[in-house]
């Protein structure tokens, strides 16, 4: 596949394509270096990804929008854990489980505080007042049922942050008053991995594998069915279950491959899951 030919053809149809591709990410501005020539690997997955980026909605890559989206999810999580702590069922949990939830709740509260500061610092109006719907919470009539929702929220959070990582790619470091200089992508990823630790622990509390295994009791839930499902076995264009696809003689099972990668949820997919949970 000749990647540059495709670009040329696209440019004939859409003269702005190079501008669309270029401005935020310097992918094409320095193709001279060996490493960056990997951008020309011209695999279908790579092409698809780049063109999705180039033609994504006009808000793609707006840090205020991205961090407010993250803040909305953190507000929802934070309020959920506050309701958990205030629930009569909390006292029925073991001391260790209570300590874990208290710790996670503290994290979510500080993520809310941090993201609020960041959104303000980059000139936006921070999201606020997002709460977990009281009537829905009232249907969770045991600590175990509350933990189910916690697992879904945490795994969804992981997948939501992941879904926006490439929108933060190439955005310059920014100085946030009261926080210091941050790299927006790195900061988001440093929350992302903490959310993954939460998800792992809650799954362990529920006797599930720490990772999304495809055999857990909730793994059929809508949260795990984005356009790219958690059962996906193709990464970077390689179907990793194909016999000998990478290493001659070695075949990985679909379950093992799927367990090794977390997939993304797009913003519309995430909001479709989260919005029904948000309310007074």
């Amino acid at each position, binding site marked *: 596949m000749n990647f540059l030919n495709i670009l040329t053809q696209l440019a004939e149809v859409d003269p702005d394509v190079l501008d669309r591709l270029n401005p935020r990410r310097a992918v094409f501005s320095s193709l001279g270096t*060996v*490493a960056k020539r990997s951008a020309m690997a011209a695999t279908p997955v790579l092409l698809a990804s780049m063109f999705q980026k180039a033609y994504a909605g006009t808000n793609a890559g707006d840090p205020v929008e991205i961090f407010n989206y993250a803040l909305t999810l953190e507000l929802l999580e934070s309020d959920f854990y506050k309701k958990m702590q205030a629930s009569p069922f909390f006292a029925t949990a073991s001391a260790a489980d209570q300590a874990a939830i208290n710790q996670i709740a503290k994290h979510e509260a500080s*993520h809310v505080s941090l993201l609020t500061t960041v959104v303000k610092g980059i000139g936006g109006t921070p999201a606020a007042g997002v709460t977990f719907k009281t009537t829905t919470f009232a249907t969770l009539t045991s600590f175990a049922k509350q933990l189910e929702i916690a697992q879904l929220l945490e795994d969804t959070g992981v997948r939501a942050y992941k879904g926006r990582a490439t929108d933060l790619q190439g955005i310059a470091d920014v100085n946030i008053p009261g926080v210091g200089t941050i790299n927006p992508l790195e900061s988001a990823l440093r929350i992302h*991995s903490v959310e993954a630790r939460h998800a792992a622990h809650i799954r*362990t509390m529920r006797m599930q594998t720490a990772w999304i295994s495809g055999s857990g009791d909730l793994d059929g839930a809508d949260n795990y069915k984005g356009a790219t499902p958690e059962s996906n076995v193709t990464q970077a264009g390689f179907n*990793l279950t194909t016999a000998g696809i990478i290493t001659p003689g070695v075949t*990985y099972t679909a379950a093992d491959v799927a367990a090794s990668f977390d997939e993304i949820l797009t913003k519309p997919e995430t909001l479709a899951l989260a919005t029904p949970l948000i309310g007074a």
Partner: protein
Amino acid sequence: MLIPSSAAPLAAADYIPHLPNAGRRSFVKYAGAVAATLTLASCSKHNEVPGTVNIGSADGGALNFAYAQEQLQAAFYAQVLAGAYFGNLAVGSAEQQVFAALALHQRIYVDLLKATIIQGKAAPIQALTADFSAVNFSSRQDILRTAAQLEDLAVAAYNGVARFFTVPAYLLLAAKIVSVKARHAALVRDLLTPNSFVANDVVTLTEGTSLERAQTPAQVAAAANNFLATGSKLNVINLA
């Protein structure tokens, strides 16, 4: 029982000889039987500093940096599976399944990252030779402590190197892996010390921001080099 000295240092298992039906079960057997004897030739032509492995720059460097972490971990878990502690675990016990799964996940990452680097027309670094001579593979405590160190280190490595990716597909791939590494890290930390999945040494609790603690590629490399043999130590000078 310590690993016989003749078995060390181990190489990260890379391209391996034909293994009919090498699913999880036979991989476990394979790793136990063969990992200790694997040695692999260097394929790197980029050792600018004698005795170090220059991982390169930009996308190729960032992928190679991840590839190095995964090689190190794959070598570690292969040695765990070959060791006395794992050998004495009941088949089907929780820890037996955990270590078998972790070893397998690492193999998948090593394979996929190497293939992705080659596909991207960059040069993969050599097969690294790990040195876990300080780890007692008959000790649960030693194994879990080292596993936690390596998993936490890998999370920090991916988080810190992310900004060097210019190709969205590579960043996305790294993001898909790093959250599973964080799950690994949380799990092995909890096995070592209950409820330590987000302790202050890995998450900024005292600072009140609750972020994964950051490490630059140079800091990660310095820590990883403690587990890499002479000739396999990482040089990240071009990744800054």
